[in-house]
């Protein structure tokens, strides 16, 4: 991106803002004859013809079941830079798919539609896993603005390279379950294979995001309520211990390599190339690692987040929401689409089997990656049985994750200004990984001072 692009993007917001007044709610629109057209994200690109065809088949089935709704799909994905301008110009898709780090900001800025009545009128609403609804709720009002579907959702866990584990003399079926074990495994991988034992992400707010999970696993929290406001709580021992461990692995064990400025995609790339032994992520990381970064499916292993007294982990994935400019009819149609496309295959065995069958037409599609349960165990088992004939990922590789993760509590993101917390902590994680003399306590105090002001403003 060059200077002109960002300058025109920021200033362009002003221009599109003026256009907004003359514009309706995007490509979609309501009409007086009861018919409604919505636009939705998620259409696979032309380079993935089988997946694209499968998506279009589902649209046809949805339109047949809902003759008054027309769905126009776009292969655009979430992009924070273009969303603001598209929203201002009335060109944002009706149904948007956003990373789970975004909903709270979108809700606070009133850029997404309140879907409480539409979702509560869904018969399965009360059966749905409340942990998947929580990130999309306004805690103050209880209103629901979207839904996190099981597809692609995960609890933060440990991704590891089974081949490197074997080479390092470790058991690929028994990944570390505590941070001490993780440290030993990282050292063994580095010493015996020369590869990076454990990689940590540190940029684009991912350093703070991972540190939050690490803090949860040690029984800590990032924010606490004090009177009527939230204050930073990450200066406690759990966060200090998490940072100290990273520092020691980097500078005492030398098991983390030298490159410490990296985001999630950088680590996926290095893991796919066989350069990294372990890193924090969910099982769904197998999809980009195998499909985009050339990783070997049989080498991919997933375990639960290592623990040290917290018995907790953090939710990750995507949220499905409706842009604030949608009319009530468009919002209702959007919710119907979300439930049909992304949730129904998790409670109706026939829908699950049909979806898996369509996906299996393209052997590149990975079927059977563990996801966060949307419904009760009984429902889950029926759906899993329906999908079983089409499963093509080695389930044994995910067993440690499935078994150990079930024992952990799923905690939400920090309740106020989570992205700002992560942004304030990225430099802290970077410091302990790039400076031998870094003092975690002092770094955390400085970040807490900065966050106290932010949280006060966000109140």
């Amino acid at each position: 991106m060059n200077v002109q692009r960002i300058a025109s993007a920021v200033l362009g917001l002003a221009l599109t803002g003026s256009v907004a007044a003359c514009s309706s709610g995007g490509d979609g629109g309501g009409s007086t004859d009861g018919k409604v057209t919505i636009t939705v994200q998620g259409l696979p690109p032309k380079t993935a013809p089988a997946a694209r065809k499968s998506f279009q088949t589902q649209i046809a089935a949805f339109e047949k079941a809902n003759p008054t709704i027309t769905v126009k799909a776009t292969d655009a994905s979430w992009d924070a830079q273009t969303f603001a301008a598209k929203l201002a110009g009335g060109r944002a898709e009706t149904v948007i798919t956003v990373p789970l780090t975004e909903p709270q900001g979108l809700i606070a800025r009133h850029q997404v539609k309140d879907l409480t009545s539409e979702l509560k009128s869904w018969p399965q609403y009360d059966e749905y896993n409340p942990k998947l609804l929580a990130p999309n709720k306004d805690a103050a009002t209880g209103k629901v603005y979207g839904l996190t579907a099981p597809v692609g959702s995960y609890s933060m866990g440990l991704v590891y390279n089974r081949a490197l584990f074997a080479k390092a003399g470790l058991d690929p079926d028994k990944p570390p379950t505590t941070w001490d074990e993780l440290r030993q495994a990282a050292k063994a991988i580095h010493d015996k294979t020369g590869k990076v034992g454990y990689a940590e992400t540190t940029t684009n707010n991912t350093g703070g995001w991972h540190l939050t999970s690490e803090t949860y696993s040690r029984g800590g929290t990032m924010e606490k309520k004090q009177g009527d406001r939230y204050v930073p709580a990450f200066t406690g021992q759990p966060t200090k211990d998490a940072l100290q461990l990273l520092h020691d692995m980097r500078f005492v064990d030398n098991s983390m390599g030298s490159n410490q400025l990296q985001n999630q995609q950088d680590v996926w790339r290095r893991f796919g190339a066989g350069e990294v032994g372990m890193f924090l992520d969910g099982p769904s990381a197998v999809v980009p690692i195998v499909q985009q970064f050339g990783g070997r499916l049989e080498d991919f292993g997933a375990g639960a987040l290592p623990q040290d007294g917290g018995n907790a982990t953090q939710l990750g994935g995507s949220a499905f929401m409706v842009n604030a400019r949608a009319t009530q009819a468009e919002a209702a149609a959007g919710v119907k689409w979300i439930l049909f496309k992304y949730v129904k295959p998790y409670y109706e065995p026939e829908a699950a089997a049909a979806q898996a069958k369509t996906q299996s037409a393209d052997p590149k599609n990975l079927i059977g990656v563990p996801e966060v349960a949307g419904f009760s165990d009984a429902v889950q088992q029926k759906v899993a049985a329906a999908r079983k004939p089409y499963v093509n990922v080695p389930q044994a590789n995910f067993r440690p994750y499935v078994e150990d993760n079930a024992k952990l509590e799923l905690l939400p993101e920090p309740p106020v200004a989570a992205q700002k917390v992560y942004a304030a902590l990225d430099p802290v994680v970077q410091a302990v990984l790039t400076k031998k003399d870094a003092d975690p306590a002092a770094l955390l105090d400085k970040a807490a001072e900065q966050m106290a002001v932010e949280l006060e403003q966000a109140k």
Partner: protein
Amino acid sequence: MSSLDVRSRAAGQVRKEGVVAQRARPRRPGRRLRNDLVALAFLLPALFCFGYFAWWPMVRGLELSFQQTNLVDPAEWVGLQNFRRILDDPLLATAVKNTLLFAGLALVIGFPLPLLLAVQMSTVRRLAGLYRYLVYLPVMLPPVVGVLLWQMFYEPDHGLFNTVLGVVGLGPYPWLQSTHTAMLSLVLEATWAGMGSATLIYLAAITRVPPELYEAAETDGARIWRRLWHITLPQLRGTVLLLLLMQLIATLQVFAEPYLMTDGGPENATVTVLLLIYRYAFVDGDYGAASAMSMLLAVALSLLSAVYLWSTRRWSSS
């Protein structure tokens, strides 16, 4: 009197004569109005494009800097709140300091290099086209590709630079991984990426320097450095001063390098003003604060340009 003085005086004379000639043939008002309208008609498309895509957004940007908006509901006027917010941001001072450091390092490293290259290339007779192509090649690469390429070169373990330097017993150096060297690493990449254009502009300017000046200097026994100092630089001063101002403005708006290479790290050592504006707008969704900071940057750059032009007016016109 230099040959430039002679030419500029001659041009001035021509202009004066032109004015006299115009005055001698007064036009009829109707014809003049028609000519003006025709000129305006030709100008209209350009005026529309500038007005709609550049000036109007600037005015709206100024308006936004005093508003709070989610781009859905009507904007709310908040007075100077956005400006107070950005001035209270503890990262602002860091970002300004880093931006000035980038501009300063780019000035020291990146500014003389194209000039020296151009001087050197102007003396080459064989394969001159190939050298020009090679020096301009980085400019033709998309900026993102260049940045990502250098990011790989800077890899501390297996990157090109540490591997090559290791052969001669140097390094390994942390490059982007250290607060001490990260900004310098960005400047080196930006210099590589941007020097092609400046080199070609200098080269074109050098070819306009009358060769008899060099011949006279050579006759007087002046070596290459004296010729550069006493002939080339004075002859190019207009070009040098303009490129210096353009470089200052460009480097004070540095964005792609820290955004793609370091995301402002390590430890905020490469957070720049434009990166902060980006984060306000597209990470925090605070378009008012982003606009307010954009306005402050625009004012600062305008002042800098005015002071620069005022302080260099004597050099550029003498």
